[in-house]
């Protein structure tokens, strides 16, 4: 099977759905331009024309209401935000309107709207280009929230999201755009609301969110050499959550670390942790532990940025601590560095 990167998988899913269904269109600030949202919308305007792939004014609030209006009157919009930080401008529409149009009409309306939001660490992105804000949206009934990690998942889940008659917010960590794997060429759906065990293990469950699954895999490799077997569970869909998959894993291992790429306080990890404690209390060998951003605005200077973001080292040390192992010397390990791919500016 041919390999495809995550950005290409998004592009392929979008292209195939636009070919399949003329009601699908994609829009947002910068969508048809040369930079094309990290390449994820590259070539679409050439293929489908400016009526189905277009730029917008910097009016996130109105453009979200616009997507809602188009969705309830028969089209299937995909709205793209190059940073979730900018999508906050659309919170009024997402929280007050998009989330409850189906409920308030007693199910008379469908809202087939996909909102893609880029998250993640860059190159000194600072306080306003760096957030994730998963729990801001998982908190709201009526929104589906997904955060695929792998290229094959993002292709299938985005396809499922476009075909879904409910609003779906898709979080995409920008570092994932470079990830490559074998991805089927034909269109397919990965159902929303179904998680995935990325790596089976016995000793401890690591629930990873988005990019942190990449870090968790690195950590698991390192720990395997020390005889520790890590199970990695990727919820993939944050709302509605595949709770059973996570709880089953934790019941088997008796230990759980939640590795989020977001703030810990009142974050999605708090929700997961609460559910695990409520439903697996008797089977836990240790309290659930959470990993995430430092509770500060994101600093720009590299040395502090390194302190702010968790990574594979953080996960390794958390597992060691939970299992009562000595902290290993990780100096010789090969950790991920985005500098190999990206040196700014945006």
């Amino acid at each position: 099977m041919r390999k495809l990167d995550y950005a290409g998988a998004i592009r392929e899913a979008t292209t195939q759905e636009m070919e399949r269904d003329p009601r699908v269109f994609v829009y947002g600030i910068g969508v048809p331009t040369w930079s094309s949202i990290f390449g994820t919308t590259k070539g679409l305007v050439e293929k489908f024309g400016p009526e189905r792939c277009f730029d917008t004014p910097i009016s996130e609030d109105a453009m979200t209401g616009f997507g809602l209006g188009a969705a309830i009157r028969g089209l299937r919009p995909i709205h793209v935000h190059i940073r979730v930080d900018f999508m906050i401008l659309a919170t009024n529409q997402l929280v007050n309107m998009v989330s409850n149009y189906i409920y308030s009409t007693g199910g008379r309306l469908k809202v087939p709207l996909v909102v893609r939001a880029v998250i993640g660490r860059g190159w000194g992105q600072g306080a306003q280009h760096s957030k994730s804000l998963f729990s801001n949206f998982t908190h709201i009934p009526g929104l589906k929230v997904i955060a695929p990690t792998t290229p094959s998942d993002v292709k299938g889940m985005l396809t499922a999201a476009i075909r879904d008659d409910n609003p779906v917010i898709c979080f995409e960590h920008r570092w994932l755009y470079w990830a490559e794997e074998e991805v089927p060429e034909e269109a397919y759906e990965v159902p929303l609301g179904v998680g995935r065990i990325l790596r089976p293990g016995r000793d401890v469950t690591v629930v990873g969110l988005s990019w942190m699954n990449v870090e968790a895999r690195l950590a698991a490799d390192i720990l395997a050499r020390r005889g520790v077997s890590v199970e990695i569970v990727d919820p993939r869909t944050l709302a509605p959550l595949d709770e059973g998959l996570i709880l089953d894993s934790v019941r088997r291992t008796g230990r759980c670390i939640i590795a989020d790429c977001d703030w810990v306080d009142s974050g999605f990890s708090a929700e997961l942790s609460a559910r695990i404690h409520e439903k697996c209390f008797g089977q836990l060998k240790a309290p659930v532990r959470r990993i995430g951003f430092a509770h500060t605005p994101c600093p720009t200077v590299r040395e502090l940025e390194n302190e702010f973001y968790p990574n594979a080292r953080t996960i390794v040390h958390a597992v060691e601590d939970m299992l009562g192992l000595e902290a290993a010397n990780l100096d010789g390990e090969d950790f991920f560095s985005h500098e190999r791919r990206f040196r700014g500016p945006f």
Partner: protein
Amino acid sequence: MRSDREPLPKTTAIQLYRSLFLARRSEEYIVEHYPENLMRTPMHMSMGQEFVCVGVCAALDGTADVFASYRSHAAFLAQTHDTDRFFSELYGRTSGTGEGKGGSMHLAAPDQGHILSSGVVATQIPVAVGAAFANLRLATGRTAVAFFGDGAADAGVFWESLNSAALFRLPMLFVCEDNGYAVDTPRAARQVAASLTEAVKPFGADAYEDDSGDVESVYTLAREAVTKARRDRRPAFLNIKCCRYLEHVGIGTDWNWGYRDQATVEREWIARDALKVQRARLASHQVGESAIAALEQEIESAIQASVQRASLAPIPTPDRLHAGVFHAKA
């Protein structure tokens, strides 16, 4: 006042009066029965300004996709004439527009072109822009209409929506029900522009203003505006001056609160109340008093029957709470 226009045909004059009377009597029923505490939903009454929605919806003759604010009653009834689902929703019954989950602020009859009214100022406006886009792309022949108060023009999203609609060349109507107040705050305390109509023009919409208080004038204006909007693929902005007779929310008057004067409102607005004017116009069309009374009695009976049906309809069972958060896959 658009005094130069041709008189409308008799049938249109009657149709407009029916719609005005339906909205007014429905709200008078609410005023009489709200204190019974069975319609437990905050109501933002249209009374006094019904002629705006009635005139515009009649002009579009069933081709409108209406996006109204929380001041939703006149828009809903003008567009749908559906008192059954209207009162069922206000009484919180399964036969309502949202099986009781919406209430007065969230009335929805998308099958009849009243999509869903919204309770946060200005939020419905960009949704109408998206509907206009879909209508154009799918060639439905329908025209999106956003109704909102002058308070919505305080909000950034109004200007974003206007700019976007003009930029995307969408034929649609932005209809400002300009009653001069945002809740109780007068326009002068909120807006610098002396004329909203003038302020809108550079954004690429055709802007019209009407201070006649007259349903036929609004009807004629809306017909002109929508014809031009469709022909030129441009949005139109209609600034219709009107007067809210009651308080912002609820069934009371607010004369004793000191921010507006009863005598002035009575002299400037209530004296030329749109219903009164239109009723007199029917007489000039040789519609006799008995015929008018029969028409009114017919509407009165329809309202009573709808209320009766609502009272007999089921209240949602507790299991409906969790139903319908998401659309089930067909």
